[in-house]
């Protein structure tokens, strides 16, 4: 107990406290919050627009591609559909996809493919496959097995059993999860932009590093508006389609 207290004391003393920097920081915080109160959509509008559109296309492409890839992995990771070895391989692959936070994956892809939205799309695809694949597998493992048995007794092949017995049962889940992931991907596209993976996040970092807090405020407001719009649209789609 005493040694812990001693350690904390020593550790605290090693952190330099510079009153000058704190003063400077406080005044910058003033600028920052002041800037937020005066959002400026106009000055950097071309950049903001490009960033937003880039984020939207990254989100759409990554969600669609991620969905396509996650379906085979998700089916393969369902214990009730495939033999043991396939299950282990697919579960393992999905675990790898989910192992790292998006930021780390983005840094990796930026290092591989350079700055820009391609690295961002790759990051979001990996995250989407990990997310949808795992949840899809869980949904498939919970389905009613009786219709599958019935299709088996009718001589249906494995792909037919999946299309007629499995997919109809998990379709509402797939749709709901995909809409949810669309929403997450848009928000993530802003975050991974911070490490150079394109999109509105890149515009945001640029504005920050220029101390243009009015533009930062405008971008944040737009992100909130987009997420809100996505919420409304996905709610509408859910009601229409499910």
């Amino acid at each position, binding site marked *: 107990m005493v040694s812990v207290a001693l350690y904390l004391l020593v550790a605290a003393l090693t952190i330099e406290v510079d009153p000058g920097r704190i003063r400077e920081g406080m005044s910058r915080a003033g600028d920052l919050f002041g800037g937020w109160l005066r959002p400026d959509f106009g000055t950097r509008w071309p950049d903001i627009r490009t960033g937003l559109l880039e984020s939207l296309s990254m989100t759409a492409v990554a969600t669609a591609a991620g969905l396509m890839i996650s379906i085979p992995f998700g089916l393969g990771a369902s214990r009730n559909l495939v033999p043991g070895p396939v299950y282990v391989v697919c579960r393992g692959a999905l675990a790898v996809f989910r192992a790292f936070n998006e930021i780390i994956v983005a840094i990796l892809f930026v290092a591989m493919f350079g700055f820009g939205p391609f690295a961002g799309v790759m990051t979001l695809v990996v995250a989407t496959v990990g997310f949808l694949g795992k949840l899809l597998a869980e949904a498939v493992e919970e389905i009613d097995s*009786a219709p599958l048995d019935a299709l088996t007794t*009718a*001589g249906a*092949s494995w792909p037919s059993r999946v299309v*007629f017995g499995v997919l109809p049962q998990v379709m509402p889940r797939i749709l709901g999860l995909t809409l949810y992931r669309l929403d997450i991907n848009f928000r993530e596209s802003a975050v991974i932009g911070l490490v150079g993976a394109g999109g509105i996040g890149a515009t945001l970092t640029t504005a920050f590093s220029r101390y243009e807090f009015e533009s930062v405020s405008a971008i944040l407001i737009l992100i909130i508006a987009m997420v809100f719009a996505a919420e409304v649209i996905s709610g509408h789609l859910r009601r229409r389609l499910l």
Partner: protein
Amino acid sequence: MSTDRAPDGSAALKIEDLVVRYGKGEDVLRGVSLQLQRHEVVGLIGASGSGKSTLLRAIHRLVEPTAGAVILDGVNLLGLAGPKLRQARLRMGMIFQEHALVGRLTVMENVLCGTLGRTGFWKSVRRNFEPNDVEEAFRLLERMGLDGLEDRRCDELSGGQKQRVGIARALIQHPDILLVDEPTASLDPAASARIMILITEVCAEDGLSAIINLHDVPLARRFCPRILGLHAGRIVFDGPPSALNDEILTQVYGEEALESYVGVRSTETRVGD
């Protein structure tokens, strides 16, 4: 309903010494042998856990038998795999206890699922079923009293209607044999009787053989000219309903469970005999 036990002994289905063991546990089926003649309707009775469902599922290889043989037209199904097994399965229509329909598909789609063993994958995905099959599906729905319901989703149907869709799905396979697992389990007595009448009529009209699992002994007596009693994975009775006396029912169900299955002692009523 004829019990045409063909003199040449041409069995529709022969089961030899079928054993099913789940994991390292006890055997669920301990060497079941039986012959199902053409056009013969057999009722299979037994307490729950006696292996009735397992027997039907093992015949269809939904459960993999540990040993024995299931012989359909001289071919042992246990030696088949892939397309050959699927072709063999088409010839044995199975009707399930809880309908086993895909609730989110329409009645028509569920019936056409019975043709998946002979319809190509891509054709079925595009819902491009053979016109003959579609026509037949309409005819079967009419025969089941479900005409006009083809576009309804199956989860909107009543229990009895669902069971009829299940029967139509089995029949569109063009089976020689029906394997029927507790068709009346979730139905009230009147609906139960109607479903049994329907199944036995279909068997008579189309010349099918059937093995029908029934938990309800009076129903078995009424509709099945031959009854098999299964106890602890072994067949302990094989004969006509008239031979089914208290002693045998006790053998099949065990003394304490007898009342709950038979309801009334066999000597008191013979429903529909």
